[in-house]
């Protein structure tokens, strides 16, 4: 947990004053909607199909219970009693009134939260591994670096009007849980053979109309240089990124057009001229930021306490939840519990104010007052004593947050789609809902094993369909909703873009197609524990294509 100091609080308060003034000028007509648009976007305010939407950043996915309770209050007071967690560690409220937005923002600022740079052509919320600080395989806490970068790019005088949005992710583990390679820029903290730590720098990733995976342009950037290197990349992009065509304005197109090598050379020249200047990080600066992160005062415990073993033997449902939703922690005797926001027939990522409040109480009792938000649109309690897991599970069950489907076929990532979004061509949420109903039987889901479905309602790919094991993309054909299906995508350390299996199918057939693909996988896998994604890799998409289109 990063604790805001007086500087952070003051800047946020001043930002609210600034936005309040902008809103009042809009309401008085002094600003046209066209002039207001970039200003509201810089504060996370979108105009959607039915109302204004406010997107609030949850930097590096870490929430205090104070903040979670505030989100519940915002949901109740200004919205319709729920919020929607996105694929980029943000929460969205879809029904806010323009005139009330400044008040909502002032309330958020009081708990160190904001919507700054959650939209617009600037550097967006910096994301990381949702298990940062507790993952056993990380080399250090990536949030310290994410926070340094967050501060550096906030209200940046040079990079607030770039060609397009710019998304940065930071990771520090071998296993990539932050989808690094689909970001405009990604930084992976690692050690080389000599044991020196530094960042692998990747640029030019992104999904949307022209998907690319980010390419490495610097294998080991010294940690002291991280801000100057980010500055050099952004400066190169800001000057030379295309601005004539919105579909070609992301950095991925610049990197692709120039070639990664030429792009890297341009960055290198700029970086050499600034790296020893004011952006070179001094150890005291890094230590100061690191010192503002609060870590739990863990008890000395052992792994596998007897209470846990007894509960597993005594209750199969608990045992299944444990094996699907609970993960190893770096501290002995502790665990990370993932809470599925994917109920059968529900909207992926939605959470009610009542759930938020009750979850805050549980986090205070069982997780040192901390909650995490991941890009899969689920939540996690990051510091649960293993002996408390049975009690926690019962209490989570009472508020509908002990669903067992984490990483299974019904744990679907989806954008809001045509139900809310003015950019969408097709509905996403009802597709997700129908799939969860088809696969409601948990044993059937467990038999299918790890299987990620990602749904986007348009080519902007907010549901990351290109990197879903099964990707579903809504398109519009002659006024009707059709869906393209891709297979074999993944967003981890072996990131791959999925392959289109054939012609788009109509809305009513999507769930049938997913069932056909699942059935084909069961026939094709060479052993029960060969994962879906590994079967696709081994046999290719052809056998799936045959199965899906044989009857259509």
């Amino acid at each position: 947990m990063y604790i805001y100091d007086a500087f952070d609080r003051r800047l946020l308060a001043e930002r609210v004053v600034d936005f309040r003034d902008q809103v009042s000028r809009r309401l008085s007509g002094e600003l046209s909607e066209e002039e207001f648009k970039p200003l509201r976007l810089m504060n996370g305010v979108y105009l959607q199909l039915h109302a204004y939407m406010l997107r609030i950043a949850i930097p590096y996915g870490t929430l205090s219970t104070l903040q979670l309770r505030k989100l519940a209050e915002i949901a109740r007071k200004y919205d319709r009693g729920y919020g929607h967690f996105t694929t980029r560690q943000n929460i969205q409220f879809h029904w806010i009134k323009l005139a009330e937005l400044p008040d909502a923002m002032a309330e958020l600022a009081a708990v160190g939260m904001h919507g700054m740079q959650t939209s617009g052509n600037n550097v967006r919320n910096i994301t990381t591994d949702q298990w940062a600080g507790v993952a056993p395989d990380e080399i250090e806490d990536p949030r310290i670096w994410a926070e340094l970068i967050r501060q550096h790019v906030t209200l940046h005088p040079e990079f607030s009007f770039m060609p397009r949005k710019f998304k940065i992710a930071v990771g520090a583990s071998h296993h990539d849980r932050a989808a690094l390679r689909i970001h405009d820029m990604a930084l992976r903290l690692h050690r080389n053979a000599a044991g020196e730590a530094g960042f692998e720098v990747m640029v030019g990733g992104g999904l949307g109309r022209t998907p690319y995976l980010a390419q490495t342009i610097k294998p080991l950037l010294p940690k002291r240089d991280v801000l100057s290197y980010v500055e050099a990349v952004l400066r190169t992009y800001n000057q030379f990124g295309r601005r004539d065509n919105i579909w070609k304005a992301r950095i991925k197109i610049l990197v692709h057009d120039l070639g990664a090598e030429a792009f890297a050379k341009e960055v290198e020249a700029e970086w050499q001229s600034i790296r020893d200047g004011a952006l070179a990080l001094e150890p005291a600066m890094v230590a100061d930021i690191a010192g503002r992160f609060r870590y739990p005062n863990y008890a000395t415990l052992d792994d596998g306490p007897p209470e846990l073993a007894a509960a597993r033997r005594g209750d199969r449902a608990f045992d299944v939840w444990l094996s699907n939703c609970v993960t190893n922690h770096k501290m002995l005797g502790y665990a990370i519990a993932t809470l599925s926001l994917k109920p059968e027939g529900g909207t992926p990522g939605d959470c009610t104010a009542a759930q938020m409040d009750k979850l805050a109480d549980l986090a205070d009792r069982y997780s040192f007052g901390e909650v995490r938000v991941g890009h899969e649109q689920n939540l996690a309690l990051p510091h649960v004593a293993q002996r408390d897991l049975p009690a926690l599970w019962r209490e989570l069950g009472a508020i509908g947050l002990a669903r067992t489907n984490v990483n299974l076929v019904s744990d679907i990532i989806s954008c809001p789609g045509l139900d809310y979004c003015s950019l969408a061509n097709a509905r996403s949420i009802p597709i997700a809902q129908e799939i969860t109903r088809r696969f409601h039987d948990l044993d059937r889901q467990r038999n299918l094993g790890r299987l990620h479905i990602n749904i986007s309602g348009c080519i902007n790919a907010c549901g990351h369909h290109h990197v879903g094991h099964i990707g579903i993309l809504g398109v519009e054909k002659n006024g009707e909703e059709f869906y393209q299906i891709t297979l074999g995508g993944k967003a981890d350390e072996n990131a791959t873009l999925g392959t289109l299996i054939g012609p788009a199918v109509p809305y009513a057939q999507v769930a049938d197609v997913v069932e056909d693909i699942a059935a084909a996988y069961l026939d094709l896998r060479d052993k029960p524990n060969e994962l879906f994604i590994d079967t696709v890799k081994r046999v290719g998409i052809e056998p799936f294509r045959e199965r899906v289109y044989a009857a259509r």
Partner: protein
Amino acid sequence: MPLVENGQIVQDRYTYVGDEEPIPERVPVIVPAQRFLAEADALIRRDGSLGVGWPNDRRIGELAPWLGHLALVALKFPKFRDGRAYSQARLLRETYRFRGTLRATGDVLRDQFHFLIRAGFDSFEVKKPADAHAFAEAANRYSVVYQPSADGRTPALRRRVTATATESADAIDTAKR
């Protein structure tokens, strides 16, 4: 279109001259980039302050050899959301150490002032009179900055590690109340 310098609305001393027009002697002029580059040797020997209007899609480094002879560089914001000139401004100030007047022209509105000043601009052709009158208020809206830039303000990261009794985070909080 009002011109703001030193926080005040002022009369523009400069005259813009086009590509074909004769250049008047002994008055400050702003010459388009193309013409400046073609006639630079003669222009820098001329009597009178010399400014150049530079487009935002041409490398600002090309101007580097001439900066010592220029009293003013005018950069362009063809649209509010086209921010290329922010990079050009910082390069001029921080990399090429340009100390003359740096003027923002084009779609220059109130909500850019904070960014423009921080990027090193000190002269502003403001599109709307009301925005020009609100300059001082808009320019002083933020007392905390997170990054070093051309305006020389000390970012929070450094203020935190060099905080003295008069400038500790707590003192900031107290001052705010």
